[in-house]
């Protein structure tokens, strides 16, 4: 599935700008929101090809956004891929729960923008 539109939910301005800058340069259509509530609204309103989801967010945590979109056996965004990008060290159980609902789970400190582009490319070919 080709990936064109990306929603980036990231509250850290430096990190957000970094992703947006390199994703736009790579030709993606990127929308960036900084709080969880806006992120959930945006994800519901438009079918993005990909959502980059942080966990520690103001207003609404990434885990809550994920369960609102893909909890209780439903999937409001079946055509959208989700990459969790976090530096937060979740415990094993919570991480396992999130991992089941997403397409990739990455530690931000390990992922430079270039590597992120490589992951997105790989996801697009799956």
């Amino acid at each position, binding site marked *: 599935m080709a990936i064109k539109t990306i929603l980036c939910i990231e509250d850290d301005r430096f990190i957000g700008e*970094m992703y947006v800058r*390199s994703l736009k340069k790579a030709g993606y259509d990127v929308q960036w929101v900084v709080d969880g509530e806006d992120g959930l609204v945006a994800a519901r309103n438009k079918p993005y090809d990909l959502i980059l989801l942080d966990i520690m967010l103001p207003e609404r945590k990434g885990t809550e956004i994920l369960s609102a979109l893909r909890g209780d056996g439903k999937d409001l965004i079946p055509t959208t891929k989700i990459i969790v990008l976090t530096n*937060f*060290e979740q*415990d094993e159980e*919570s991480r396992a729960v999130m991992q089941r609902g997403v397409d990739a789970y990455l530690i*931000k400190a390990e992922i*430079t923008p270039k590597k992120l582009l490589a992951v997105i490319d*790989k996801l697009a070919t799956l």
Partner: protein
Amino acid sequence: MAITSQPAMVRDYWPRYRRRALVITIFMQIAATIAIGSTLVAAGVLVPTPAFWVTIFAILATTLGVNILLATQLLIPLKNLTSALTHISGEPTVITPPSPNAQSFERDGFKPLLQLIYQLAAGDITATQAPAAAIATHATNFTTALDNAAIGFVIMNVQQQVSYANKKAPVHITPQGATVLDLLFEADDTLTAWLKDCEEHAVHAEHTWQRVANKIVGEDDRKIYDVVASYQKGSEAEVVISMFDRTATYQPEDDSLDFLAFAAHELRGPITVIRGYLDVLGDELGSQLSADQVQLMQRLVVSANRLGSYVNNILNASRYDRRHLKMHLAEDSIANIYSSISDDMQLRASSQNRLLAVHIPPDLPTVAADSASVGEVISNLIDNAVKYSNEGGAVDVTARADGDFVKVAVTDRGIGMPGNVISNLFHKFYRSHRSRETFAGTGIGLYICKAIIESHGGKIEVRSREGEGSAFEFSLPIYATVAAKLQAASGSNEELIRRQEGGWIKNHAMFRG
């Protein structure tokens, strides 16, 4: 004419039995009298005079009367039982059913019997009043005692459903009414898996789990237990589980990890930004940089990457100490694992003027490995080799198959170590006197390397000679030798086994820069 056989009715039993009982009584009495009379005559004790016959008949009449009366009396309870049973059988009958409230029944103690019959007929299966009361008292005592006990206590029946849980037991009741244990076992060591194993291989068994929580971190009322289960095949209480609440002991340790987790989060933020912007800048500036500026950029990148590795080491060590270091083993090759850190390693070596030579044969058997963690091990070993070798020195990474293992070695020709240092090398925070004075470091790298490799079922060893260099070699099990075991374990955790070509990217290892 057709013969019709009437089905036996409950009400028919009593008259027939009564008749037979009386006939037998009369017959036996007459027979006994005749036998005694003839014996007396035959023996010549008595002569059959008219007086003799009168006496015989008088005795016969009296004993007959007494015995018929006695038999009738003895048959009364049977009569009452059968009439009660006839009544509850629903057969048409003119007999009045015996009333449990009759005074005579109260006097002779027949009342409870009648009540039992009527209650059983009414479907009240708890009707066994007297013993039930006794059992109930015992049960209440036990229940009270168990509810007051400091441990959680659960009994499972042969179907392995919870048949009893005391107050302290962490359970919840499903909408279907089943009681379910709230215990979050480690994916590769669950109660269910153990029970399955017991069913297949054991008659009696016991197992202990430590640090089993009832809820995930962050939820209210989270408790951490040590759990002991005993299994006795076929018993009413086939599985008995005791749960000792150890929250007070384990929680402070968990809290300190929470602190580390938050601290790591804080550290990782700036690291993300530094590494990310270096990446962006490297791309965007590209050709504009002079050769020495490129080198400065590389040093920045290497340092930022190392900073990231240190944070990972600290997190891994704290996870390991809490026994939360988890390896997600999957089939992978050393070459593939190394390729994910190759660029970073080359940069680290070259920026410090070391010559990194890697010889990993492409045809080595695959290993069972958590690729991110093994990458961290190799990266730590190369870091050390770079650190403890000389400017311009060579660092070799080699791999070979050896029995059921693949062995990977990182060798330098640097300063080496004396024997007394080697024995302490893998201890946490251990740093030799010499290295404390000369080199930076936390003393945590080799500790975590050992933890990671041993969690894989491998070993890490070192050979070193002072002044000649060191060789660190670790082993990982060849995938084929452990595949069956891993696949069996994956029943409870589908993520445990992932083939590299799987459609799901779990780990950052492949994309580490």
